[in-house]
């Protein structure tokens, strides 16, 4: 709650989501600043995806309020939120299996540029649309598979398409739910660079378990545990927070008995965790 004084683009206030007896998000309040590179981390099942579902309107919150650029959008349908510039990716690929990547992107771009209701013109008739598609295909290494049905693509390609679709929507607020899962190590950085290179006024909320990436990407972080907000802060603060280490980051160096782990590498600025945190461990939800 300390650093930037930029205006808040997306704000969630006291969001509660219950599934029967389970409370998946419990009075979560989150502010996404304009141009932020904000990471949302937390153990499995902490409610991160649920939060994104609430923000994007896939789920209706049991309690709470969501505002986007100052306007209350709690009751808006998902597509209306997209129209206001809030776009997401899915943790588990959600693609149009029988369409080709090219068609998928062309349709997304058309929809985005207000051509979605045109039924007389052919898809791709509009030059700008086609050019934008070509550019996206290029950027996400999808050009050579652009005419294959999405259904037969390898997982990695599908993953790339998943993200390309979101970018094709020209978001002002982008919510990324584990975008690089299944993307090979080499392409991960590149992919996130694409995201990082979005215009500075685009705000990004990133959910990711790959800590290398998170720490190299984020300038602000929120930690969610068991549906509740545990703490917030700069990457440095989070990396050194013993509580976060205990429930999420893990033992750091100690685990290196098993070799270098992806998440255990401390981010550049941070120092090693107090050794005591390491012994907690086993049950992240204690």
């Amino acid at each position, binding site marked *: 709650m300390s650093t930037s004084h930029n205006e808040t683009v997306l704000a969630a206030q006291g969001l509660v989501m219950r*599934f029967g007896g*389970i409370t998946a998000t419990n009075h979560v309040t989150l502010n996404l600043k304009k141009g932020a590179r904000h990471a949302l981390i*937390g*153990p*499995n*099942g*902490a*409610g*991160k*995806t*649920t939060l994104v579902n609430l923000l994007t309107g896939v789920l209706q919150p049991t309690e709470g309020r969501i505002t986007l650029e100052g306007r209350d959008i709690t009751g808006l349908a998902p597509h209306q939120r997209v129209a206001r510039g809030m776009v997401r990716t899915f*943790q*588990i690929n959600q693609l149009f299996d029988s369409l080709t990547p090219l068609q998928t992107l062309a349709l997304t771009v058309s929809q985005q540029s207000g051509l979605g209701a045109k039924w007389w013109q052919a898809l791709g008739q509009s030059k700008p649309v086609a050019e934008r598609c070509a550019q996206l295909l290029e950027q996400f290494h999808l050009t050579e598979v652009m005419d294959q049905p999405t259904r*037969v693509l*390898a*997982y*990695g*390609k599908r993953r790339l398409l998943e993200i390309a679709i979101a970018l094709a929507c020209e978001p002002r607020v982008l919510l990324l739910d*584990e975008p690089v*899962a*299944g*993307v*090979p*190590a*080499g*392409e*991960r950085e590149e992919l996130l660079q694409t995201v990082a290179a979005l215009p500075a006024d685009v705000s990004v909320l990133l959910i990711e*378990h790959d*800590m290398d990436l998170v720490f190299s990407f984020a300038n602000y972080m929120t930690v969610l545990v068991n549906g509740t907000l545990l703490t917030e802060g700069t990457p440095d603060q989070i990396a050194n927070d013993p509580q976060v280490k205990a*429930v*999420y*980051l*893990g*033992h750091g160096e100690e*685990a290196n008995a*098993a*070799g*270098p*782990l*992806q*998440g*255990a590498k401390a981010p550049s600025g941070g120092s090693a965790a107090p050794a005591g945190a390491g012994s907690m*461990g*086993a*049950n*992240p*939800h204690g």
Partner: protein
Amino acid sequence: MAELLKVEKLRAGYGEAVVLHDVSLTLDEGATLALLGRNGTGKTTLINTLAGATRQHGGSIALGGVALHQLASHERAAVGIGWVPQERNIFKSLTVHENLTAVARPGKWNPDGVYAMFPRLAERKTNLGTQLSGGEQQMLAVGRALVLNPRLLLLDEPLEGLAPIIVEELLRAIRRITREEGLSAIIVEQHPQAILAISDRAVVLDRGMVAHAGTAQELREQPERLDRLLGVAR
């Protein structure tokens, strides 16, 4: 150590399309193999072929002397294959508990053992498969393979989407299981370093063929070579 798995001149794919062209490899009992390669090189296809979920066009697979390629997919579990598919494929209309009991075979591992390993799952016992978070589904997929009490675990990107602390734990568990219980494992991972650390051997696939096979140690110590094999430009 006795040889557990022997794959020779394997050709396989989907329908008429051949994805794996000529794959041969062997794996000892209790040993762990890291299966590496870029996107779309056929890692998943190889794993699925071992599990009997693709179309095999040629070659042979032997598991502990049994000709696996002659067995139907469902008979392979009885011989000792435990499969964690890449897209998890949790049975969506079954609860967490049913997901485990539906496939469980007698042996050391039972649902309770899985719950002890992933306490999170115990809390979600009665949730349907679709009502789990991504990471929970991943844990369940691993647990589901374990209750088969296999001799060879096939793990297709098992760490994907897990919290770092769980990753640590799972890696440690895999190592313990392979070392102490004599289980073998083939692990596909996008994070070669993490997985090479606990593996004995490593195979790199490229375009459906084995581009490199050797010990895990050797690749661990030569990161540049590994990068080259994986086609990573640094």
